[in-house]
C-alpha cells in the first residue's frame, strides 16, 4: 500500500480543512527540508561549516501536540523537525540567534492573516503562531541566503530553484 501513501500536503489540507493554508504549511516544510539538504550538500561558501542541520526533534511535548493537531504520527513529527531545522539554519546563517515570535510579527502585510488562520486551523494559539513563524521566517531565510554574496553558483542555483518552484 506504500504507493498510496498520502503526501504531507494532502494530509494537512484534509486535517486543517483549509486548502490554501494546508498547501502553504506543506510547502514551507518541504522548502525547509530542501534548504537543509542544499546546505548539507555544499556549505563551503557558508562560513566553511559543512553540517547537516536537519533536526531530529527530542521535544516530545511539541511533537505530541503537532501529532495531535494533525492527527498523523509521522507528519506531526516532520513539522516539528522542520521547525527546529529552520531555527538551527537561521541561527547560523543569518541572524546569529534563533528566531523568536517578536521578530516575526508584522514582517509582512499578510503575516497577521497567516497567524490568525494558523491559530484557527490548528485550534491552538501556540501551534498556530509557531506555524506562521515558520512560514514567514522560511521566506526571509531563503531570500537572505540568495542575496548573500558569499554563496557559490551551485548553491545559489539550487536555492533559486527552491524559491521559484
Amino acid at each position: 500500500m506504500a504507493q498510496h501513501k498520502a503526501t504531507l500536503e494532502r494530509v494537512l489540507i484534509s486535517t486543517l480543512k483549509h486548502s490554501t493554508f494546508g498547501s502553504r504549511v506543506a510547502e514551507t516544510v518541504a522548502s525547509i527540508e530542501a534548504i537543509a539538504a542544499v546546505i548539507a550538500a555544499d556549505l563551503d561558501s557558508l562560513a566553511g561549516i559543512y553540517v547537516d542541520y536537519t533536526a531530529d526533534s527530542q521535544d516530545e511535548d511539541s511533537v505530541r501536540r503537532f501529532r495531535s493537531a494533525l492527527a498523523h504520527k509521522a507528519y506531526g513529527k516532520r513539522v516539528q523537525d522542520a521547525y527546529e531545522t529552520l531555527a538551527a539554519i537561521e541561527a547560523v546563517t543569518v541572524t546569529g540567534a534563533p528566531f523568536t515570535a517578536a521578530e516575526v510579527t508584522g514582517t509582512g502585510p499578510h503575516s497577521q492573516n497567516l497567524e490568525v488562520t494558523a491559530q484557527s486551523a490548528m485550534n491552538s494559539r501556540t501551534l498556530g503562531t509557531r506555524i506562521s513563524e515558520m512560514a514567514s521566517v522560511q521566506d526571509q531565510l531563503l531570500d537572505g541566503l540568495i542575496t548573500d554574496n558569499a554563496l557559490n553558483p551551485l548553491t545559489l542555483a539550487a536555492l533559486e530553484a527552491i524559491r521559484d518552484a
Partner: protein
Amino acid sequence: MTRFDKLEELKKSVKSGKKPAKKPQKKVESKKEEPKAAEVEEVKAEEPKTEETEETKKKKKKVVKKED
C-alpha cells in the same frame, strides 16, 4: 504537479546528488518503412490454406438440414 511536489523532487535530487530532472521532451515518431512488394508476396504465399476437415463438412450438412 504542485509546488510541494516540485520541492520534494528537488530535495530528493539534491540528496542523491543528481541534477533536477528536465521536462520530458516529446518523442518524434519515425516513419515506419513500408514493406517491399516482394516481401508482401512471400507472406501471402506462406499463409496456410484452411482445409475443410471432416468436422466442418459435417457441420455444414447439419446447417443445411435445419434450413430444410
